[in-house]
């Protein structure tokens, strides 16, 4: 499109890329502020390599990699049919770029990015699983969320949503991994252990295959997808408002952050900003959710190490926060609190007092837990030096959140890409230095404190005012207007039946989820339903690094490391 070429502020990235690959860059735009580059499929890996290695670009993190099927876009769709989309982040220059390339229907293949970023592994497997696009040079391209006997690729637009699938229990050979190795030459035989899907520590349902030499882990594999509920496919057939309840179930330990992230992405498509009070409330509920998430993580972690009492201390504190959440939005877990353009309702009366009481209790419980754990030699022995990951590996594997920060890498979306009112609030980002389980525990404990600070500042700074944007495109008219005026009635009818209709375009919004960068990538075709709704789940990236962190450790370390990674299956498997 000609207008796009006239964008004044052309980013450094696109200038440098065009210099280096004049032929390869097909299109460039910066809709909604997202720097976007479309490149030729043949140059995909070269461009990626260039973006990573060029000193003034240094896109060292592959945040997300997904695809979009444009078969039914507008009238007759678009050729080439698929688009593979990568979201890159440069830690040293704090900038983001969206890299896209078209993949035709008759030859759905593309170079794998694994030689550039190791973390492309699972993301590419998911694209293969969902779209049937194959990645050349990918060492381990097999289905990831779905099972082997699954027919078709569900996120393709021509995949019928009500298609029945054969449920062949033998489709997935449980010993697929076991047969891979040959230990005939060794003196002792290695033992293979299946951890999960039914195992007390594999909460959220996950399956690990471990190869053991005595108690030492030699090798292993992680199998996910047991909680796959086709969130992304479901979103395509629901209005934007109807998707919000589904986001509750992504990270079900901190559902409010998902709510906030999703509506922020829709609002980005509209290019609107919500009223100030609403923004403060959104920060407030996000931080409350972060606290509940970290409490749950540390509690479950300690329980799995055998310190059962800690679990109850923290769950008690979490319970009180959930009561607060219930007071705010009427539900403890299935919150569905945010709306496009605002939040469901203002804070309830007497909230400030209730919150103050809860924070006192939280402080007491944290004090107790710190004395139970941090002054305990056994806890130190179990956590220190186990599940270690180097910052380099963590970045290559697309890590983010507390796990990345425990390695000493200073990356927090709330600081690097401030959204809502985070830039007006004062908080620190705690960093570890050794990247082991103990540092992850410490980072989470400190983040709870920082979240408390944020919550307190929100309560102090929050102005009065509306909590919902007065915009007929997204906000329901008041009931009096619906019943009293024809415009109000029509507006209400359109919003309910057809849904909110953001302008056509695409937007990616990252928020700092409890486990790291939670990204929502929305493609709108101008109708009331998202054309594509992609979630960048933070623990998906963490989980692909799990085996690396476990290798060489002992069986008992599995629970400690898996616990501090804090996989939430709802988000991981979607």
């Amino acid at each position: 499109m000609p207008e796009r070429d006239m964008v004044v502020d052309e980013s450094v990235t696109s200038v440098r890329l065009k210099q280096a690959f004049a032929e390869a860059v097909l299109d460039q735009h910066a809709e909604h502020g997202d720097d976007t580059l479309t490149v030729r499929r043949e140059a995909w890996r070269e461009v990626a390599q260039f973006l990573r290695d060029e000193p003034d670009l240094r896109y060292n993190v592959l945040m997300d990699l997904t695809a979009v099927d444009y078969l039914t876009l507008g009238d007759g769709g678009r050729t080439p049919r698929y688009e593979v989309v990568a979201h890159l982040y440069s830690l040293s220059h704090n900038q983001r770029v969206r890299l896209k390339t078209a993949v035709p229907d008759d030859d759905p293949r593309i170079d794998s990015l694994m030689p550039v970023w190791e973390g492309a592994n699972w993301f590419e497997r998911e694209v293969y699983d969902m779209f049937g696009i194959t990645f050349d040079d990918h060492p381990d391209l097999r289905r990831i969320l779905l099972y082997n006997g699954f027919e078709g690729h569900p996120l393709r637009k021509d995949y019928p949503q009500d298609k029945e699938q054969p449920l062949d229990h033998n489709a997935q050979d449980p010993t697929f991994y076991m047969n891979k190795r040959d230990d005939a030459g060794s003196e002792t035989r290695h033992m293979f252990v299946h951890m999960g899907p039914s195992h007390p520590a594999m909460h959220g349902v996950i399956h690990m295959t471990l190869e053991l030499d005595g108690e030492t882990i030699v090798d292993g594999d992680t199998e996910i997808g047991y909680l796959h509920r086709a969130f992304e496919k479901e979103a395509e057939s629901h209005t934007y408002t109807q998707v919000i309840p589904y986001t509750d179930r992504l990270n079900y330990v901190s559902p409010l952050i998902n709510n906030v992230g999703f509506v922020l992405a829709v609002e980005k498509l509209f290019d609107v900003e919500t009223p100030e009070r609403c923004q403060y409330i959104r920060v407030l509920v996000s931080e409350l959710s972060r606290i509940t998430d970290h409490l749950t993580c540390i509690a479950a972690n300690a329980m799995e190490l055998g310190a059962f009492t800690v679990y109850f201390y923290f769950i008690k504190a979490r319970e009180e926060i959930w009561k607060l959440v219930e007071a705010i939005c009427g539900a403890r877990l299935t919150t569905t609190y945010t709306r496009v353009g605002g939040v469901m309702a203002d804070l309830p009366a007497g909230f400030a007092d209730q919150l103050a009481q809860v924070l006192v209790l939280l402080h007491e419980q944290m004090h107790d837990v710190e004395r139970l754990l941090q002054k305990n030699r056994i806890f130190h022995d179990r956590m220190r030096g186990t599940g270690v990951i180097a910052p380099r590996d963590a970045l290559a594997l697309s890590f983010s959140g507390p796990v990345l920060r425990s390695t000493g890498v200073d990356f927090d979306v709330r600081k690097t890409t401030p959204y809502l009112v985070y830039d007006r609030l004062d908080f620190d980002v705690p960093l570890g230095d050794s990247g082991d389980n103990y540092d992850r525990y410490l980072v989470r404990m400190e983040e709870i404190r920082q979240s408390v600070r944020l919550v307190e500042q929100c309560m102090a700074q929050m102005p009065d005012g509306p909590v919902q944007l007065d915009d007929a495109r997204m906000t329901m008219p008041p009931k009096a207007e619906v019943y009293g005026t024809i415009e109000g009635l029509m507006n209400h009818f359109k919003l309910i039946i057809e849904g909110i209709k953001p302008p056509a375009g695409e937007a990616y919004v990252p928020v700092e989820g409890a486990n790291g960068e939670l990204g929502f990538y929305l493609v709108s075709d101008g109708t009331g339903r998202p054309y594509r709704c992609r979630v960048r789940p933070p623990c998906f990236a963490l989980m692909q690094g799990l085996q690396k962190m476990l290798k060489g450790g002992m069986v008992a370390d599995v629970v400690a490391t898996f616990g501090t990674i804090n996989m939430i299956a709802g988000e991981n498997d979607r």
Partner: protein
Amino acid sequence: MWVDVLIILLKVLVVLLVLIHLGALLTWAERKQSAAIQDRIGPNRARIAGRAAMGLFHALADGIKMVTKEDFVPAGAHRTLHTLAPAAALFPALVVFAAIPFGDVLRIGERVIPLQIADLNVGIVYIFAISSMAVYGTMLAGWASNNNYALLGGLRASSQMISYEITMGLSIIGVLMIYESAQLNVIVQKQGELLWGFLPKWGIVVQPAAFFLFLAAAMAENKRVPFDLPEGESEIIGYFVEYSSMKFAMFFLAEFVEIVIVSGLVATLFFGGWQVPYLYADGFHWPFGLGVWQLPHLLVVLLQVAAFGFKVLIGCWVLLTVRWTLPRFRYDQVMHLGWKILLELAFVNLLITAVVVLLIT
């Protein structure tokens, strides 16, 4: 003659019943105590005639549940050994108590009844011999289940129990040196003597280091947190993962009976057994010449038995509290602690004790 046999049978019956019931009651105590520690209410649902009795009936409900559940033997398991293992685990726990004296002697007319099932002159050796057999139960359970997790649990259990037995044995030798006997009743009697005229010569006074070593090693033998890695319910579920019904209950009962045994041994060796300070066969002899308080024989015996029971219960309480306070060790850390720290300390303690005993005598 037949009266003697009858008395012995009666003693056996009483000790066995008390032991088993105390074990079952400990399951209740563990739940209620953990609930108190964890800010919970604990079990309070099982009712008889509308009374919950602080959840006491849950022990009963558990028994009924265990008996009525399906007894499952997995495919590929060694049926005989799989069935034998729970018995092998419970048997040593039940018979160890035979050598532990729970009172001095009871005189009824002409008859003198020692309050102990068997006053063996090698009491300590008997206890070690029997309790070391407990490892067979766990090892067999792990091996016969045809399950990798159970096997890991069995391996962990056997290596841990064998390792800690050495420390346990060594820590006791100091006690034996000081009391110059392996006969438990004699050890207890000698703990009634006074040091400097006022301090009871209890094991903990003369052998404090041995007490801590013994307690740590005994907890490891008992396989409870922080040494519960053969069970490790969140890692490998344990050597009894393939057990159900009463067989499973037997493993659990064995664990709780072992708690009583450990408490009993600790009380006997380090806390004067049935001794009450300054209480002798004819009453209290207060130190510093404060006089004598005469008591009837039956009351003295009752006091002594009650003192022993009290000490055992305190021991159980300590063991339960530890369970709900600490996280679990890792396999290599347990081995490190056992072989490189506790064993060395036990040797040093032994050496010091030997030198001191030699110098004094």
